[in-house]
């Protein structure tokens, strides 16, 4: 078995504009997803919006420079993730297709195995 990280990319404006009913519906979708794929799930969280992000880069002299905001400014930002276990990419994609991402989509990345 291998592990995959399913990164949820969504449009944050759509999230911010969503009313309470929409928020509750999406929460329900995540609960249903968790029930359906509980056996494959190894972890997962929702993240606070990217305006809360802090990025750290090394400058030319090797010092850490801290800046406000996400590492890359994009229309869709990472809003959460699931860590799943699957036999192969097809099995992982089958789970990832069910991840709720109404305002965007997901990216599936294999976790590198260290030996």
């Amino acid at each position, binding site marked *: 078995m291998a592990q995959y990280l399913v990164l949820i990319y969504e449009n944050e404006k759509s999230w911010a504009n969503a009313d309470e009913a929409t928020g509750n519906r999406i929460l329900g979708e995540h609960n249903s997803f968790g029930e359906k794929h509980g056996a494959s799930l190894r972890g997962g969280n929702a993240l606070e919006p990217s305006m809360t992000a802090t990025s750290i880069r090394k400058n030319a002299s090797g010092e850490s420079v801290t800046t406000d905001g996400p590492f890359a400014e994009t229309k869709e930002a990472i809003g959460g993730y699931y860590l799943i276990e699957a*036999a*192969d*990419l*097809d099995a*992982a994609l089958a789970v990832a297709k069910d991840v709720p991402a109404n305002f965007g989509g997901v990216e599936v990345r*294999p976790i590198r*195995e260290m*030996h």
Partner: protein
Amino acid sequence: MLAATIRITRDFDVAEECVQDAFARALATWSQQGIPANPGAWLTTVARRCAIDIGRRRDVAVRSQRFLVTDDSDGGLEVTDGEFEDDRLRLIFTCCHPSLATDTQVALALRMLCGLSTAEVAKAFLVKESAMAARLTRAKKKIALARIPYRVPERAELRGRIDAVLLVIHLLFTTGHTSPVGENLTQADLVERALDLARMLHNLLPDDAEATSLLALILLTDSRRGARVGSGGEFLALADQDRSKWHRDSIDEGLTLVGESIRRGRPGRFTLMAAVAAVHSSASHWDETDWAEIVGLYDLLLEAWPSPVVALNRAVALSFAEGPSVGLAALDELSTEPQLSTYPYLAAARGDCLERLERFIEAREAFEEAAMLTENHVERDFLHTRIAQLS
């Protein structure tokens, strides 16, 4: 052979090494002991043994990281045509996995399924060999690291996976049918590979109209292979071919298959293309071609698959159904299509209509433009002959 070896190694690079090793051993052994009765089987056996040896030698932990995963539960699919075909089907579904870009899928299929060298694949794509090598390496890495499975998808997911496979087989065929570059009009081995694959896919999915039609399309188009080149190696257009040289068995099989597909209801892209080929195959002479029927089929094809290349073919058919001035008007509407700006057949088709309208100077210019755009020597010679005839 490569496919059979990959099944053991789960790793494209290791499998390629094993196959090369098998050829090297064959040279040494065969020169002493003579060529075995079944050289192909001998080579495959040696390559597989090498793969098994490497597999044993490898640390289990490393293997689990690098090697492709296999799923032995094949979802109840019955492939009766032997282990070898089974392996090639697995390989084509891996090469055509939706997580790989279409260009990469075709390049992988050419390299892994059709045995083209990296240099030859690079040529087919008109890119530098180093760039193609890098693209293939990236693709093989992704297959291994993301664990793209090496298996035929289960029935439930097959429907969504088959279009990519059909497309890649068709591209293999067209690449072989008219080489994009080079001195020969066709690459027979590529055509044969595409035909084999289409047949395998049809055997796997006998009820799938599009898979049936792709096989029919390849059979019908390829039935003309022996008539497309004249005694001096020159290209012969459909109008000038000696139709008695068309391969009758391929035509009969192709027509039967098209008939089956059409009866299945709303025709898809490959069914419509095969139906066009069938109209040509059914005419015993160029003058008997039912052009109105062909235009009608292209109208449907434009709906199923809107593409400037289809529109170009429709315009050509229109020039025969309703005359060259109608055809030329339809062709001129396509002159601003960016996809056709470097496509030699648009200029060639314009030249043909202009010649039939006796606008010889413009016809000549159009053929000259087409000759500049094609990189196939046989096609270029054909265009130069037409230019000479206009002078």
